[in-house]
């Protein structure tokens, strides 16, 4: 796991007196503040990505989770280090909780040579089984059956590990979602399926995605328990997921958790959200921002001081500044690296035919040895291999 936020200073309310405060869901004071750290880290990192996008330093699109930080952070926080999750594009927070670092995310978005996928893949499409996350692919729903398999292996080996997979309201319409959840349910895999209901799939409102009144109702059809919670309340998201995780760990199989939230930005930065009714976004921003809501709760109910809160903000800002600095100085990938790593074996040298700048004529000697094969003397491909082994 990534470094946790150190415990804050002395517990002090705004009136300066010490209080005996209890925290919900069995959380400690440190954990309560840690939840705030992960949400703030998610938001600040995405704000930084927006700045880099405007400077055209982000390659391709930018997908935000503004207003959804609580559901990703709260749910992922319910897992242990040995558990495995698979996020969606809007679950950046869950990746951070599981140990992905801001510098990795920044490099990935900027398509750097030392990004987790060495420039092959984009945004949060990357994984690390050691840290317990497996990146999604674009085709929606595909990770549900994959996570059924991940958790099936936990069951088969008798490991007390749990899996968690996120799907959007839109992705629930895919065949892969249905097949995966049904498979996992029948096999009683230790899997939690989190439906992140944020109201829209690209431009399509949820009512055009399903006639079901709510996604938890679908659990009945699969014969598994389902529970819904306020996804903009980080502690509620934690609590409801924790119950499902505990069930899974206890051998009780699959559960479905529906977290209610709202996508305040467009599908990606280029989407102007013209399809959203007037006032809707503002209402969520002003009345139901998960970070603002939590800050108010930290100050009031949980009696954290302003200094404790701004310490977290300051630390996050420093971390993101440092990470940006490092990521911006990362080198671009080497073109030839594109050719290695398709198979574990045989590795490396792919057959090449004409490469620009490398060969302008073909003489018969080259043809005789099968011209079109990249000359073995050119070490670039093996350098690519070496770089990978250093990861």
């Amino acid at each position, binding site marked *: 796991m990534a470094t946790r936020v150190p415990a804050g200073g002395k517990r002090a309310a705004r009136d300066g007196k010490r209080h005996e405060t209890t925290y919900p869901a069995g959380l400690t004071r440190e954990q309560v503040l840690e939840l705030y750290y992960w949400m703030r880290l998610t938001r600040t990192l995405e704000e930084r990505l927006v700045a880099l996008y405007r400077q055209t330093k982000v390659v391709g699109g930018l997908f935000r989770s503004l207003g959804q930080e609580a559901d990703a952070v709260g749910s992922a926080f319910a897992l242990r280090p040995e558990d495995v999750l698979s996020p969606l594009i809007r679950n950046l927070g869950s990746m951070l909780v599981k140990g992905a670092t801001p510098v990795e995310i920044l490099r990935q978005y900027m398509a750097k*040579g030392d990004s987790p996928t060495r420039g*092959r*893949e984009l945004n949060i*499409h990357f994984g690390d089984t050691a840290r317990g996350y497996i990146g999604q692919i674009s085709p929606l729903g595909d990770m549900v059956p994959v996570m059924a398999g991940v958790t099936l292996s936990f069951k088969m080996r008798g490991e007390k590990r749990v899996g968690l997979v996120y799907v959007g309201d839109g992705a629930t*319409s895919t065949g892969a979602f249905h097949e995966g959840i049904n498979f996992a349910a029948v096999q009683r895999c230790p899997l939690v399926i989190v439906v992140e209901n944020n109201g829209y799939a690209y*431009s399509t409102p949820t009512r055009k995605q399903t006639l079901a009144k709510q996604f938890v109702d679908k659990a009945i059809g699969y014969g598994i328990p389902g529970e819904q919670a306020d996804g903009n309340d980080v502690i509620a998201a934690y609590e409801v997921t924790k119950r499902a995780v505990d069930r899974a760990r206890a051998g009780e199989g699959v559960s479905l958790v529906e977290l209610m939230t709202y996508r305040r930005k467009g599908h990606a930065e280029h989407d102007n959200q013209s399809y959203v009714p007037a006032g809707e976004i503002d209402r969520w921003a002003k009345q139901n921002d998960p970070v603002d809501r939590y800050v108010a709760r930290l100050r009031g109910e949980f009696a954290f001081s302003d200094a404790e809160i701004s310490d977290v903000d300051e630390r996050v800002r420093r971390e993101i500044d440092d990470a940006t600095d490092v990521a911006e100085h990362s080198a671009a990938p080497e*073109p030839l690296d594109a050719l290695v790593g398709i198979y574990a074996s045989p590795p490396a040298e792919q057959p090449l035919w004409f*490469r620009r700048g490398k060969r302008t*004529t*073909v003489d018969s000697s080259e043809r005789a040895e099968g011209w079109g094969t990249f000359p073995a003397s050119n070490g670039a491909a093996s350098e690519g291999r070496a770089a990978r082994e250093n990861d």
Partner: protein
Amino acid sequence: MTEITYLEAIREALFEEMERDDDVFCLGEDIAAYGGAFKVTEGLSQRFGEQRVIDTPISEVGIVGAAAGAAHMGMRPVVEMQFIDFIANAYDMLTNYVATARYRANLPCPMVVRGPSGGYVRGGPFHSQNPEAGFIHTPGLKVVYPSTAEDAKGLLKSAIRDEDCVLFFEHKYLYRRIKGTMPTGDHTVPIGKARLAREGRDLSIITYAAMVWKALEAADQLEKEDGLSVDVVDLRTLSPLDDEAIEATTRKTNRVLVVHEDTRTGGIAGEIVARINESCFAWLDAPVLRVTAHDVPLPYAPQLEDFVLPQTSDIVTAARALAAY
């Protein structure tokens, strides 16, 4: 006459066909009010209503299967894949069901599945694919992939009127970069006929889609720098292939280069080379060469994408080798 883009040409075809025939309807993700991810269907639902321009759930199998059922009943569905990459999700429905329906069970499937394809846009592995080869291998599907705005419109209209299922690939890199002037009246282009994009004597480049433009660029350079005169054949339809056009250019120049953006192994270039070998061996002065993408999933970083995808300089290099053979 005003010029319109490749994208607008596709939109015009949809408008005109929906005006012409009440049985034509569109279905896909985010195509109604939003007008589609690339805005190809913009304005369509305002004109024809959300009954004939249907926003569907995210379910490619459902969309394609439903289109087939409607087609059996005499409707003319036009399916949009938000990105053609997701046609893979509907592969079963298209290859097992749709492609075999007429042959097996005398069930007509007059439908179109269209969508943005191709790379050069930093879209990463799942927003850049050219999956035509997999479908060309399946008898019962027609495959069309235009390179010009005129063809995009004319071929889409033909595809909608066709009695069979037509997969209509659109190159997203061309959407807003390529313009053309539409002939007046009911402009259709026949499916199955290639187009001579440039007339030459010394060697032939057989290609399609975005590569046509790179081939033309290469041909210009070869003419200027090497004095070579290059025949460029734009296939337009990939299934069925226009054998006549392939043979004609081969017999004319005796040196052929096949270029496509898709990966090399199992790509359609291999099929074209085989056909030339079978029917034109005696006319060849050199082995038929291919320029294609490398056999790797398409990577995201610009440096990697540019390296993996064929570039104009690759075509020039290969053409020079061919001419010197």
